[in-house]
């Protein structure tokens, strides 16, 4: 009985995703239209399709990371950026921009995307080092906060010294889906498959954690190693997404909450649905961002915050009424 519902919900989410990607090829800088003058048609499929797929994949990576963060730290306010990955990525981008004038070939290869990715990984690594490994959730979270603050201060100093770079960095900060290309899509697709597979395999450890850390250990689970693997996946998924689309706000935080009612408690299902939900959220936001005032674009992070926030508000009101009755 439960299995049927699961398949039904899964196919529902997948169909919705496909519909959105299709819409993505329809909507663009002149509103909704597939009619393009002449040979531009292929060009637009070179632009709109990778952009739509890319937005979906980035959202999926962020949703996955958010689901992991919330389950691992057992905190409904956790998001993929809390272990210093956001500030690290920002600093990475700033560094590449700052030293671009050196014309070093390494910098060309790494590029802004690579800089963001490496920065995110370094941020999480710093948090882990500061906490001395994953000894306790609280300790790791606090280290993450400390690293975020320190790197954030470094960023502020940065923009103070080079205010001309501020605007470029700001567009990264607000999230940017406008320049997604097929190569970015390929990278994210590979990352998503790897991260999702590994997470789905080891997700029962997250279920076991609901009984408490000690009990989970007595069930024979290599808790410390598994948690480190999950942190690694968190960093990898966040880094990949952020490298392609910048720091899109709220997707990682909202996606797990949006699908919680659907998932029925098991972490394997919850994380899979968070992943799909994140993709749906970010792609929908991208569609709105580019269509509402075409050809002017709203920063996609603004739309995700509004969409996700409104939906969460509706959810909250419904549950509070439920509790009263």
């Amino acid at each position, binding site marked *: 009985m439960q299995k049927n519902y699961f398949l039904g919900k899964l196919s529902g989410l997948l169909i919705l995703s496909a519909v959105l990607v299709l819409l993505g090829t329809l909507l663009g800088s002149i509103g909704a239209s597939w009619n393009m003058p002449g040979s531009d048609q292929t060009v637009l499929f070179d632009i709109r399709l990778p952009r739509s797929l890319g937005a979906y994949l980035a959202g999926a990576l962020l949703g996955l990371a958010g689901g992991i963060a919330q389950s691992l730290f057992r905190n409904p306010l956790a998001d993929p950026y809390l272990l210093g990955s956001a500030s690290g990525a920002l600093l990475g981008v700033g560094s590449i921009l700052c030293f671009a004038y050196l014309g070093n070939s390494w910098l060309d290869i790494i590029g802004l995307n690579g800089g963001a990715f490496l920065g995110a990984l370094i941020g999480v690594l710093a948090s882990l080092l500061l906490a001395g490994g994953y000894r306790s959730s609280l300790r790791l979270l606090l280290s993450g906060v400390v690293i975020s603050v320190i790197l954030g201060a470094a960023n502020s100093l940065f923009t103070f010294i080079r205010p001309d770079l501020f605007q470029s960095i700001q567009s990264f900060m607000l999230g940017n889906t406008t320049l997604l290309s097929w190569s970015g899509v390929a990278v994210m697709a590979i990352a998503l498959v790897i991260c999702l597979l590994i997470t789905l395999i080891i997700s029962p450890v997250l279920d076991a954690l609901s009984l*408490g850390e000690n009990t989970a250990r007595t069930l*024979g689970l290599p808790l410390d190693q598994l948690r480190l693997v999950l942190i690694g996946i968190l960093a990898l998924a966040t880094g990949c997404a952020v490298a392609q689309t910048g720091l899109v706000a709220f997707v990682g935080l909202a996606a797990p909450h949006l699908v919680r009612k659907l998932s029925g408690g098991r972490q394997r299902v919850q994380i899979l649905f968070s992943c799909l939900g994140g993709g749906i959220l970010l792609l929908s936001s991208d569609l709105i961002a580019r269509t509402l005032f075409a050809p002017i674009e709203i920063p996609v992070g603004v739309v995700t915050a509004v969409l996700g926030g409104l939906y969460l508000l509706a959810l909250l009101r419904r549950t509070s009424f439920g509790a009263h009755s």
Partner: protein
Amino acid sequence: MKTRQLTVYRGPCAILSDLNLDIPQNKWTSVIGPNGAGKSSLLQAMAGLLKWSGSITVDEINLTSFARKDLAKKIAWLDQGSSNQEEFDDSLSVYDTVMLGRIPHQGWLHLPSKPDHIMVEQALQQTDAWHLRQRPFLQLSGGERQRVLLARLIAVDSEILLLDEPLANLDPPHQADFLKWQGNLLTQGKTLVTVLHEIHFALRADFVVMLKDGKLHFQGPSQDPRTHQALVALFDGRVRLEKLGNDWIALPN
């Protein structure tokens, strides 16, 4: 289960030192002692959660030689009255919660097999929780939750069960149920070790271990008058034991 010169550490401190215990197989052993005596730590050490030195053996095999999974299959541990279910909206169903007990038996993909489902059903039936199986665990009352957690413990199908204050948050009817289920487990050939601070329950066990200040005060059969004397001495004579029917009650002196 035997322990020799067991010293249990919590961080750098030795909570228990130099314990030599002989826990009888297929019997119910209760562990009592004043607060801070180290009762919970003893169980945690046996379950592999705390660092210890010395030896702990089951059927003459030292616990350190067990692989992690085998240890989990041999010894199951029930946490003290869990208030750790915070607001995190975890809606895991009762059935799935009990299924967690089967983790030590599952392959690396952790997909439930037919024997797993059978065990879970048996465990839920044994604790009269089968009718609750679809309900979200967090929506249950304290007594119901304890029942489910016991079912989880049973589902592990281990030879040795360690329970830390299992009756603490239950009212008398539920306590009676619990003791009944414990009895069933004993008839199935399990070995039970429970930490209790209710003396009248502790004296219902087959064997009593008394800890004081991190050291063994006394161990012996519960019906033995020497055990009763040791018990009074354990609390510095501030309690006296009265027989009521088949039970011994401890009353303040």
